[in-house]
């Protein structure tokens, strides 16, 4: 049963502003805290030259891009999680289930181990290679799911994805063998996920993909609702199932690839946020998708604030915190609901 537009509209008005406020609060508050103490007044004082204003440097060069990266990566991974769970009709699906993260990791690994030092559209080798790797992985998975089927077989998609993950992990171990000590460190660090982008360039480069995916996500909300009834029923409701599945698969993969090229394979966001949001607003994708985008942004920015402050003066990669906070929080919510 799809609700009639007017109650949905009212529910949107009742819930989404809260999520938006939370996201804005996180993005506005994120740059205010960190491993060092800075004065916001001094940071924003135009009378002090930028070169002499350490507070402004920390605010604008380190914290602001890092916070924006967190918001972007968090919302993309959360949305991709929603879409993959809807597409595969599997609550355990994550943005990384179909081999995206393993493909990305292999790309980054090759770039780090063999010291590739090109820059592609202003993107350094490791993120660029990780993006290409993720596309390669989903391309193979998609081709397998299309082969010998009239539409897209979600079962084949899932199995091929899991197999690709395992296969790429084996390749990663093989490549790892050629890495020296420092490179091994860097690979490990990359795999943890990290938002310290240190400039706005990676965000700008990822932006076109992000906008494109967001547009497709907006269109996907209703098709995903129908797909949740099962492909056959969705077809009888007049949905072009294959087209919807293809759009879902491609947009979610691109969003994940973009997110991973900015922040590495940050875990947990893509599975926890969709479920948390569903527990709060129900299962209508027209609500779940925008709410997940906003909540994912707030969650990852919040986790990054913890990562930057908990071990001060040193800072942790954000992936450590998402797993540490996300896991137990999710279990708590699950038990409370049950």
């Amino acid at each position: 049963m799809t609700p009639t537009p007017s109650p949905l509209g009212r529910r949107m008005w009742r819930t989404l502003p809260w999520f938006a406020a939370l996201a804005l609060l996180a993005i506005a508050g994120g740059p205010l805290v960190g491993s060092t103490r800075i004065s916001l007044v001094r940071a924003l004082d135009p009378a002090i030259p930028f070169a002499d204003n350490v507070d402004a440097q920390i605010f604008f060069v380190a914290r602001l891009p890092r916070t924006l990266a967190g918001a972007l990566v968090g919302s993309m991974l959360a949305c991709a999680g929603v879409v993959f769970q809807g597409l595969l009709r599997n609550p355990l699906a994550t943005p990384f289930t179909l081999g995206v993260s393993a493909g990305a990791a292999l790309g980054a690994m090759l770039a780090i181990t063999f010291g590739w030092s090109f820059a592609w559209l202003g993107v350094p080798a490791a993120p660029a290679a990780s993006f290409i790797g993720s596309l390669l992985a989903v391309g193979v998975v998609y081709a397998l799911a299309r082969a010998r089927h009239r539409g897209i077989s979600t079962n084949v998609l899932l199995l091929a994805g899991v197999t690709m993950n395992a296969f790429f992990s084996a390749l990663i171990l093989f490549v790892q063998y050629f890495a020296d000590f420092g490179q091994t460190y860097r690979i490990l660090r990359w795999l943890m996920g990290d938002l310290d982008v240190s400039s706005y360039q990676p965000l700008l480069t990822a932006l076109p993909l992000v906008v494109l995916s967001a547009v497709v996500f907006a269109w996907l909300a209703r098709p995903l609702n129908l797909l949740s009834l099962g492909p056959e029923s969705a077809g009888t409701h007049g949905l072009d199932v294959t087209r919807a599945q293809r759009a879902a698969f491609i947009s979610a993969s691109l969003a994940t690839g973009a997110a991973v090229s900015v922040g590495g394979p940050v875990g947990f966001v893509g599975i926890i946020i969709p479920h948390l949001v569903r527990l709060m607003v129900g299962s209508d994708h027209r609500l779940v998708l925008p709410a997940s985008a906003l909540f994912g942004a707030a969650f990852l920015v919040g986790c990054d604030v913890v990562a930057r402050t908990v071990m001060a003066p040193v800072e942790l990669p954000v992936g450590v915190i998402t797993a540490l906070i996300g896991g137990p929080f999710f279990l708590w919510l699950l038990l409370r609901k049950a």
Partner: protein
Amino acid sequence: MRHLGQLLLKKTSLAALLALLMLAMPRAQTPQAQTPRAPARIICLVPAVTETLFAVGAGPQVAAVSSFDNYPPEVEKLQRVGALLDPDVERILSLRPDLVVVYGSQTDLRAQLDRAHIQTFIYSHGGLAEVTATIRAIGDRVGHGPEATRLAGDIHRRIAAVRKRVAGLPRVRTLVVFEREPRSLRGIYASGGIGFVHDMIEAAGGVNVFADVKREAVQATTELILARQPEAIIELRSAAATDDERRLEIATWDRLGALPAVRSHRVHLFADQKMSIAGPRVAEVVEILGRTLHPGAFAR
């Protein structure tokens, strides 16, 4: 009663342990008690020690080295037997060594060598003081004690000379970078306040910006680097780099153009393995670092 029983059991097991230890001790001690002959077939898995062996004149005794060794040039002809994480035990045993130089963390390898009754020299990584201590210890062990003492003394003298030259000069706040992503300022590993690189910077008249972080390596984020405001940045990497690569990598720091080090063009990249090996070349490296941080003091 139960408590008494447990106590008794504990005491018996303690006694048994002591007895075992007493049985084991004399056997373990014998080979060391009588000064062993100088080893004639040394396998060295630690590049820093390989350099030392050649520097004290024990080169002809070295039978094989690790896969990362490339100095001195004589090692190119030697067999390779893996490295820290992947020692090739079969190969090592087949070469019938009488001494194997291993890392402290290679516990499995040590156990296997013990079972084969092959002597080991355990390398322990540390500060600048450990470098000369290791040189003396390995020199003694391979029958080149006097040469090693001379080498260690020479290193001490050269470093002391650098210290003297830079004494009284304002110390340069220095960031030492071990690793980062090429063409990007992400994934930076910097020297913390422990280890021979930290000691070398301090000896060369610098002050490590992460001296307060009592670890060998710090994952330095943009914020940490901005907050510490280094006046000089020294990047050490073991892989060689062309002039173009070097220029590009140094220019990458322009993104943090407000850092004092970047504004005053004091970003230096050394693409040379010797800069990060805790071996006999540390004196040379301290001199290079001194010249880099205090060019004026060496021009005189």
